[in-house]
Structures are given as structure tokens and as C-alpha cells.
């Protein structure tokens, strides 16, 4: 098997698994999310920074070591967004221009990388959310892809049901605000267009992961070399190079942009190209004037250092400015923890069994964009479910054991008695109380009417009451807790079982 075919086999498998993870089946997603993000750059990097001992963090070290040895293999083998572009490039092979050598926009990509890192350290994940390739792919998979697949599923279910076959179930796509859908479909369109027109230009110009791995791969051990004796300058390799990094005129390959797809090896009719270890490691010649590169690197280092020292995080500013923040999933710990870990991949959105987790758009302000929130118009947070924390690849939603999750207060309930049906009409309702899982809502009987009352000590903010409340606007609502708290556990009063004793011999009628 040639190295190219090996790459295609691995990457196709990774791509299919990634799509499956984002289709929202709880079992499949949970199983896959324990292995796949291990090899995803940004999730494993975040795990490594915040929890160096964690197993997922070591994935980052493996990726880093692999890049030092083999070059940017992540971009071709493991990055789902890269593989998606490769699929686009492959499918349009007959219609588009062949690849040629491209000039490098290294400066732009480094600036974007520095800006992304500095803003992230300052507490704004907006650029990470928008640019991280894994998360970009996650949104593409869980919005447009999943919508199409569920639509097909529901068509099939419809046919089956005519014949009384109920093995398959109608599945409902989670709510996607129009603005969010615009971003995910827009990014899909832009990235595919980019790739069809100029190959992996997105990865080499905009993607911060690509920029970082590009720096590392300049020192990689294995690299592509052209043998000048055998090369006839037929440009076969250049025309299949998605990264546009082969310069036949100078017989040079820019290893910082090479995504190690191995297309060139198979394309060369004279076998003038080789992929082998270079000892000693040559510093592959980026022709950036040394003064400029020094300025950039010192600015980057300085910016990163200063921003790390900066005492105020943007999240705390944001929280002070806006009292009403979105409700975050259980396990998010606090606004700053959540917004500074979440890359907005929307795996939790997709896996949520009640569809209560939806993508936010700008609700988190400067802290982040597109990060998920709980929307109680869509559903409520199921008491017996902790799936979001189980699948979260970055630790933004920490995995909680069920007993702990059942006492984690993500919001607090309040009842507006001026709107509540029972208080206004003096007629029974109980919609909120009958679904409250924690006894935070209890009935009080006055003049033969059962009024709902609230004891916030037991409230976990799951939103079952708000979702059920039949009034418009809702009489019972939940507001977000910026730091998640622990609710009290309800202990029922010991009461004699009066029922057990009565009428056990005969009938009461």
C-alpha cells in the first residue's frame, strides 16, 4: 500500500467516525467521544493546559511529537475539517484548475494565531470558537449534515409506520437559531469554495492550528525532498499538491505548509520525490527576512506573556456588565470556566436527549460566540441524564456522576404570581409541580385550591417547570447561576402509611 492510500484509508475512517459522533445517538457519541477528541488538536491542548495529568492531554503531546517526526500529519490524517476539504477537492477534480505553487501568507496566519492565543488567554474564546477546525467541523456536522440525515430518517420512518413497523423512531433536529445556522452553513460554503479554488489555502492562511503545526513542522525529521538529478520539472507533483507548497522552479518544498498527504509521491513518474528522515534536521528555508521574523516572534511572545499576566478576565467583566447570562449545562462550574474551555463544537448540543441544549449566538458577549446554552422553550434538562458532560471533549462541561448532577444548581426558579393561572383564576393547574424532579415546587391548599409554592433550596434550575408552564409569557422562569451551586437534597418527612392499614380486608364501597 502506498503512503497515499494509507492516508486515505485512515482519514476516511476518521471522517466517518467524526460524522457519526455528531449525529447525536447517545451511545455512539459517548463511545466515540472517549477516543476521537484524544487525537484532536484543540480539545487535547485545552485538556493538557488545564489538567496536564489527564489522559486526553497526553493526546496533545503525541500529536506534537508526531508533528516533530512526520510533519503536519494531523492535517491530512486526523483533522475532520481537513478531510472534508480533501473530499471536496477530490469530488471536483474534473471541473477545477489543477493545483499550482502558491505564495505563502505566513505573516497573516501567524498574526491570526497570535491574536487567537492572546484573546483566549484574556478570556475571550471568540476566535477559538470561530476558527478551531475540529469545532468548525462539529458545527457543520451537527447542523446541516445532521438535519439532512434526520430528514431522510424521518421519511423512512413515515413509510415504515404505514405498515405498523415502529422499530425506527422519528427524530427531531435540535433548534438552531437562524444566525447560528448562517455561520455554520456559511463556513461550510466558504471553506469548500476556498478548497476547490486553491486547495488547502484555508489551512495555511487562516487556521490557527495549521499555523502552529506549520511552525513545528519546519523542524520535522521526516520531510519531502526532490532529487534534482531525476526531476524533469514535469510539474506532476505540483499539480496534485493541495497545499501548493512545491516550487519546481526552485526545486524546493515548503515543509511548514505541507500537510503530508503523499499525493506527490504517487504522482511523480520518475520517483524523483522522496519522503525520508533528514539528519541533521535542516532548517527548511522560509524566506522571511530574519528581522521581520524576529519582530513577529518577539511580539507574539510578549503579547502572550503580558496577556497571561493580565489580572482581569473578560468573562468577569462581561458578567458584571450583563446580569442575565445564558444558562450553562450542568458541569460547567462557572461562567469563566465554561467560556474559557468551550470551543463550540456542539457535540453536547447534538447528543442532548431533550434538545434543551442549543447553540447561543452572541449571548455570552465577548466571552465567546456560538457556545451552547440551555433553552427551556425547547425542552428541559432531564434529571437522569449527564450525557453532555460525558461527551464534552474539552472539559468545559465537566463529567458529573448522576448523584452529583442531580444536585447541581445551574439556575434558580422564580414564580410570578401575577401571571400564574392558579393564583389568577383560582383553578387547578400544577403543570410545573407535576414535573419538578426535586420537590422545589410543592402544593399549598387554600380554600380547596392547590397553589404552587417554591422552595429554592431544592431547585437545580432544570427548567422542567418553565418548559411545562402553559402561560405566555411564562409565569415560572429560571435565571442563570454564574457560578454553579449545590442544591439541598429533599428528604421526605417520615409519615405513617395510613393507606396501608385501611380497608385491607374488604372494599370501601
Amino acid at each position, binding site marked *: 500500500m502506498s503512503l497515499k492510500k494509507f492516508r486515505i484509508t485512515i482519514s476516511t475512517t476518521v471522517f466517518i467516525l467524526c460524522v457519526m459522533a455528531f449525529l447525536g445517538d447517545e451511545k455512539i457519541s459517548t463511545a466515540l467521544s472517549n477516543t476521537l477528541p484524544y487525537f484532536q488538536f484543540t480539545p487535547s491542548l485545552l485538556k493538557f493546559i488545564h489538567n496536564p495529568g489527564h489522559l486526553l492531554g497526553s493526546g496533545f503531546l503525541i500529536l506534537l511529537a508526531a508533528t516533530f517526526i512526520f510533519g503536519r500529519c494531523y492535517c491530512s490524517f486526523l483533522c475532520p475539517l481537513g478531510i472534508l476539504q480533501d473530499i471536496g477537492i477530490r469530488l471536483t477534480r474534473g471541473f477545477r484548475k489543477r493545483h499550482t505553487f502558491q505564495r505563502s501568507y505566513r505573516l497573516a496566519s501567524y498574526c491570526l494565531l497570535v491574536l487567537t492565543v492572546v484573546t483566549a488567554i484574556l478570556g475571550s474564546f471568540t476566535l477559538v470558537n470561530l476558527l478551531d477546525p475540529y469545532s468548525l467541523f462539529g458545527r457543520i456536522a451537527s447542523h446541516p449534515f445532521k438535519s439532512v440525515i434526520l430528514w431522510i430518517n424521518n421519511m423512512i420512518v*413515515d*413509510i415504515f*409506520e*404505514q*405498515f*405498523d413497523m*415502529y422499530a425506527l*423512531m*422519528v427524530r*427531531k433536529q435540535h433548534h438552531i437559531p437562524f444566525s447560528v445556522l448562517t455561520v455554520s452553513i456559511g463556513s461550510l460554503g466558504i471553506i469548500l469554495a476556498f478548497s476547490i479554488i486553491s486547495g488547502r489555502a484555508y489551512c495555511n492562511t487562516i487556521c490557527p492550528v495549521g499555523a502552529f503545526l506549520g511552525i513545528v513542522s519546519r523542524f520535522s525529521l521526516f520531510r519531502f525532498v526532490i532529487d534534482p538529478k531525476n526531476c524533469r520539472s514535469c510539474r506532476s507533483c505540483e499539480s496534485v499538491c493541495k497545499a501548493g507548497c512545491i516550487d519546481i522552479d526552485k526545486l524546493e518544498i515548503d515543509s511548514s505548509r505541507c500537510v503530508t498527504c503523499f499525493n506527490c509521491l504517487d504522482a511523480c513518474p520518475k520517483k524523483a520525490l522522496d519522503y525520508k528522515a533528514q539528519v541533521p534536521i535542516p532548517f527548511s528555508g522560509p524566506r522571511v527576512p530574519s528581522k521581520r521574523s524576529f519582530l513577529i516572534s518577539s511580539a507574539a511572545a510578549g503579547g502572550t506573556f503580558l496577556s497571561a499576566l493580565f489580572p482581569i478576565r473578560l468573562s468577569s467583566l462581561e458578567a458584571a456588565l450583563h446580569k442575565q447570562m445564558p444558562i450553562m449545562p450542568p458541569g460547567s462550574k462557572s461562567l469563566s470556566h465554561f467560556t474559557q474551555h468551550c470551543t463550540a463544537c456542539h457535540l453536547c448540543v447534538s447528543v442532548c*436527549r*431533550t*434538545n*434543551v441544549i442549543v447553540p447561543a449566538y452572541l449571548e455570552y458577549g465577548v466571552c465567546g460566540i456560538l457556545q451552547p446554552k440551555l433553552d427551556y422553550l*425547547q*425542552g*428541559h434538562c*432531564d434529571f*437522569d441524564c449527564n450525557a453532555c458532560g460525558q461527551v464534552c471533549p474539552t472539559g468545559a462541561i465537566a463529567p458529573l456522576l448522576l448523584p452529583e448532577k442531580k444536585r447541581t444548581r445551574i439556575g434558580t426558579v422564580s414564580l410570578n404570581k401575577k401571571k400564574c*393561572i392558579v393564583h389568577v*383564576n383560582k*383553578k*387547578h*393547574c*400544577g*403543570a410545573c*409541580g*407535576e*414535573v419538578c*424532579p426535586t*420537590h422545589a415546587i*410543592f*402544593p399549598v391548599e387554600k380554600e380547596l385550591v*392547590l397553589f*404552587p409554592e417554591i422552595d429554592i433550596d431544592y431547585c437545580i434550575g432544570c427548567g*422542567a417547570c418553565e*418548559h*411545562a408552564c*402553559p*402561560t405566555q409569557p411564562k409565569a415560572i422562569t429560571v435565571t442563570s447561576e454564574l457560578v454553579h451551586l449545590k442544591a439541598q437534597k429533599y428528604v*421526605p418527612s417520615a*409519615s405513617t*402509611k*395510613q*393507606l*396501608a392499614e*385501611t*380497608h385491607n380486608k*374488604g*372494599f*370501601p*364501597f
Partner: protein
Amino acid sequence: MNKLNSKQRREFLKKSLAAGVAVGGSLLWGTTDRLFAKAAASGTPDLVAVKNGEPDAMFNQAITMMGGMKKFVKKGQTVLVKPNIGFARKPEIGATTNPKLIKSIVGHCFEAGAKKVYVFDNVAESSYGMARKCYKESGIEEAAKSAGALVAPADNEKYYQKVTIPGAKTLVSTEVHELVLEADVFINVPILKNHRYTYQSIAMKNLMGVVWDRMKYHSLDLEQSIADFCLFKKPDLNIVDAYRVMWRFGPQGSTPENAVLKKTLLVSKDIVAVDAAASKVYGMDPERVRYIQLGHDLNIGNMNLDELNIQRHVMGG
């Protein structure tokens, strides 16, 4: 999607498939004819009460006392069995109908010659995805399937059709599950349990699980709407499971300690009478449960148990 359009689309789909497949034709005709199995029963008791047995054994006894399932289900008919699967709770919590009872009822329906038996409930936890959890957790899906029933989904508006209810005071119109309209025989199988906001949940309250918009009841007048719905459709048979009775923290319940074994089963064609009797089994005066009184006032049934022919049986005694 517009509901009517979806219905038309389904009809179209049904017809085009039927044209292609010969089997489809018989299926289409089979479900449209409506033969109601309302045998003029002279000797049938108004209410049968059995106690001190397992759910299935008590049902065997009760249905025999009612004159056998053949009285209610004729050969080739389609039956709808409507349990209470309102919450994702294990049977020992007492929030959902006993699966053993459901299995036994489905078995009796097939023995009587039923062509198909459907089981469904539009669960109380209205978030998307909760229905399948309730079906599973309650053990009813498994029990019903093992007896050969079709466990149908009810968590999508496409299964519902708009109906008007003549004579209703508040619930003038509602959307009803198509199986309620299509089935020849409708068997209501509630569980008797505490309900902290209507005092009791029994047979009349159980019918909230065949409509799409439960919250319409809550916003209009919960108890009046519960009574109003019975003007549209009275079940052909009501079987109240009072084997394990949740006596507080209803309707969803808490721990098994909050339910007690009453080992009782009530069967009646009169939904008001069976609710009144069940309420007494719980230990509550039926007059306190407003919808029972309202149902009586609307002539849906008779809550005065003294006026009824009640057959009682204590098992093993």
C-alpha cells in the same frame, strides 16, 4: 409543517404504496371500517372489584366476572390499550400502569380474536425524547411487545387530528391521536395514584394522554377539560390498576416507600363510577375530586356507587 398537509401527505403515501403492494390494499380497508364492540350486556355488572392477587391473576378473574373479553373485543377488530406511561419511572414507584397487567390485557385481546392491539401514551414529560425513555423505564414497552402488541409513538404532532367536542364547557376542540379514532375498541388502563394538583389521577385523568396539547387543559380549566373530553370519547372498558398505589408525591412519585400494596383491580364501562370507586380505594371522598363530580354532572357516568350493580371478589379467600 402544516398538520393537514402532513396528513394529506401521509394519506397519499399510504395510497400510492397500497397501489404498488397488494398487501397494502387489505391493510387500508382493514383499518377504516368501524365496528364498535358494544354488546348490549344485560347481565354485565356495572363495576367489578377484585383484590388480593397478582395483577394478571386479578385481571383474569375480573374479566371473567365481566363476561369475558369476547364481550368487548370481536374477531378481527383493532384494539387500543391506553396505559399510564406518564413518567419515566420503574413500576415499583407506582407512577405507571403495571406492565404485568398490560401484558395480560393484550393477551386477552388476542385470545378474543383481535387483529391488532396498539399501546401508546402521550407522556406528561413533554420535552422531546422523554417519551421513549418513559416507554422503556416503565417496562410497558417490553411487556406489551412480548404479548404481541404494537407500541406506537405519540410524541409527534403528525399523529394527531383535530376534533371538536359538542357540549364541552371549556375543551371545545382538541387534537386526538389517530389511533383513538381508528381503533374499534378503546381500553383505558390507568393506575390509581396520588396527584398533588388534582388530588387523584385515575381513569378520566388518564385520557389526557391521548391528546396532543395537554397544556391546553391546564390553561383553560384542568378539571372541566378532563370531564369535557369524555363527552368526545368514552373508553369501551376502564381497567384501574390499584395493585401498587402511590399515596403521596404524585403524579411522578418519589421512592418505592411512598407507594403501598393495595392489590386491587377495578373494571367498569363507566369511567365516572370507576374513578369514584378507585378514589375510595385510595381513601378519599370522590366528591373532593372535582372532575369526578363534573363528569357525573355532565351525565358521563354515575358516581353514586350505591345505585350500581357492583360485583366484588377477594382472591384466595
